[in-house]
């Protein structure tokens, strides 16, 4: 990506829309919901200028259905929402995972459950993003923590969904969504456009869900002569429904294995001063901004503290985390929920390590001071 040299003030949600368009997104279907509405509003203004389509649907179920249809038709497609709408999208998100339809879903997190605190920030959908839909399924979740990173991660989201045929969810909290930062965006021409693997070769031999080396089947698109059927039923490689245990297992295994096969490409994280760290902070979004500050202040005081920030939240970058936390005795997980990310950390850490949560569930952000205090408390002990 080449920089333009032009600085601009940009809101996180607008950066989301612009990153998507730069990545080649040409279809957006959505339904207004605070604090994500600026993404839809920006798309309604910008997409028509680049021959793209914006459509406001009657609800989130319809929005999600529309992007699946558009994606099947060959468009790079996305939707954006917040917690309640994200829940409504889950059934179709499961369809996307099963039928392997590329799509990007943005969730700007607010306080929940239900209408909760519609204008206040939260990070309560960390587990919904991973496990919101039904059945065994793979999903990629990206968690940017700045305006610039939202832009970059939208580009990566489209890259991953198009090349791997896995739905990609991008989540960030209301603060990051409404944050205005000065950024320098790359020139749109310098952004490499992901190309889906399309069906090719003799149509009689085409298998819509063929197991290939890279685990990603080629996709047919209406009008190309391959006449494939798309279904939410479990199919054999031919794309026709099957209940044959062997074929069913092979299909589910390939879909899940696809993520493992490409794990190195999917994983992304930021690591600060982890090598010698006795205490590691693990967190995302606005909490990571606070954690970075606290980490710096702790180092200034001579405390061995590092920060590990998953940018790809799911699948969690296990290998990198374990390597980064080798010397750590304590892992602190600041998050604006009652304790979700910490569950994954507890699962991954060694028996000698202790996980400590710093949680806020009152619609307010976590203060760096609170994190520093916890670091000092642990260091004293």
């Amino acid at each position: 990506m080449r920089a333009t040299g032009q600085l601009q003030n940009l809101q996180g949600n607008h950066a989301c829309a612009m990153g998507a368009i730069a990545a080649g997104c040409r279809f957006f279907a959505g339904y207004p919901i605070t604090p994500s509405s600026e993404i839809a509003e920006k798309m309604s203004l910008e997409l028509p200028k680049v021959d793209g389509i914006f459509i406001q649907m009657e609800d989130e179920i319809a929005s999600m259905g529309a992007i699946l249809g558009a994606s099947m038709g060959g468009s790079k497609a996305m939707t954006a929402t917040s917690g309640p709408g994200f829940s409504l999208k889950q059934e179709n998100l499961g369809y996307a995972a099963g039928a392997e339809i590329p799509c990007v879903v943005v969730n700007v997190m607010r306080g929940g459950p239900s209408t909760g605190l519609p204008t206040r920030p939260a990070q309560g959908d960390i587990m919904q993003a991973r496990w919101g839909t039904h059945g065994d399924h793979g999903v990629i979740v990206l968690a940017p923590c700045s305006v610039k990173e939202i832009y970059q991660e939208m580009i990566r989201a489209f890259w991953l969904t198009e090349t791997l045929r896995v739905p990609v969810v991008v989540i960030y909290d209301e603060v990051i969504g409404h944050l205005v930062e000065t950024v320098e965006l790359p020139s749109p021409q310098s952004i490499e456009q992901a190309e889906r693997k399309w069906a090719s070769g003799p149509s009689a031999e085409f298998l819509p869900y063929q197991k290939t080396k890279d685990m990603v089947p080629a996709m047919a698109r209406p009008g190309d002569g391959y006449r494939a059927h798309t279904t939410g039923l479990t199919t054999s490689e031919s794309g026709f429904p099957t209940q044959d245990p062997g074929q069913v297992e092979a299909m589910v295994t390939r879909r899940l294995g696809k993520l493992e096969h490409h794990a190195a490409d999917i994983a992304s994280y930021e690591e600060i001063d982890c090598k010698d760290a006795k205490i590691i902070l693990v967190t995302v979004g606005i909490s990571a901004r606070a954690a970075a500050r606290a980490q710096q202040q702790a180092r200034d005081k001579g405390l061995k503290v590092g920060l590990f920030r998953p940018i790809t939240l799911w699948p969690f970058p296990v290998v990198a985390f374990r390597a980064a936390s080798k010397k750590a005795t304590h892992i602190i997980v600041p998050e604006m929920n009652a304790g979700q990310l910490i569950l994954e950390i507890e699962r991954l850490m060694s028996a000698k390590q202790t996980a400590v949560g710093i949680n806020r569930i009152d619609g307010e952000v976590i203060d760096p001071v609170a994190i520093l205090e916890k670091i000092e408390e642990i260091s004293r002990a």
Partner: protein
Amino acid sequence: MSNIEKPVYLEEKLEEIQASGHLEYRSKSLPTWCPGCGYFSIVEGLTAALNNLSIDPDETVVVSGIGCASRFPFFIDTYGFHSLHGRALPVATGIKVANDDLSVIVVGGDGDAFAIGGAHIPHAARRNVDITYILFDNGIYGLTKGQTSPTSVLGFQTTTSPFENHDMPLNPLMMLLSYGASWVGQAYAGHPHHMAGMIEEALAFKGFSYLHVLSPCVTFDKTSKTYQNLGMSVRPLPDDHDRSDVMAAMAQAQKTDAPALGCYFEQPRPTLADGLNDIAARAAK
């Protein structure tokens, strides 16, 4: 109907309500709507109607979805259920089925009803669940700050239709008439006296009653469904309108340029409770 043309001011109305003791239905929580929002007069209309019919607030549940309109239950001193966006009708159906003695009133906005909640309306209507649905139509999404709604007119410019709205607006009266709603009427927030009378009729009716209330959003709509535009275009239903004639009702519902106020259609038929009682009786045999 004669008072349709007469302008009424809220303060005037308040004095009247105060004098008649209607205020016992008013919640201690004051409405949080923008000054001038049409919804204020619906609170007045409903409290007046409840009072005139001597409906016990302890036996009343006001159910809503999500939106500015759906804040309504907080502002009235009955039981309230502020449900999910678009899902008020299934909740109200459950409440009514659980206790048929309750008066169940559903309120909500046009987006809540006809966008996300659209799938529930035909079923509440055809089942003829004995509730009153008061729909506040401002043709815009107020709570989320001014996006296009399913009743936004063609050419309307909003934050999600910067190049103007090209989606044909729905015709809610036509929809409800064809869904089989057994009582269908229309009122205007600018004519609160008439509206209060309509609410009273709708509440008194046994079966699914639907009252469409045209109500300006003064904050996000400066050009379309304003007091000025609506005030100039609304008219009473013709004196000879036959409310038992669904075709006549539909013919009136088509005249969207000059929305007619009044009861379009009324046709009592067995309610959901009647059906359930019949099922119970057969099962007991």
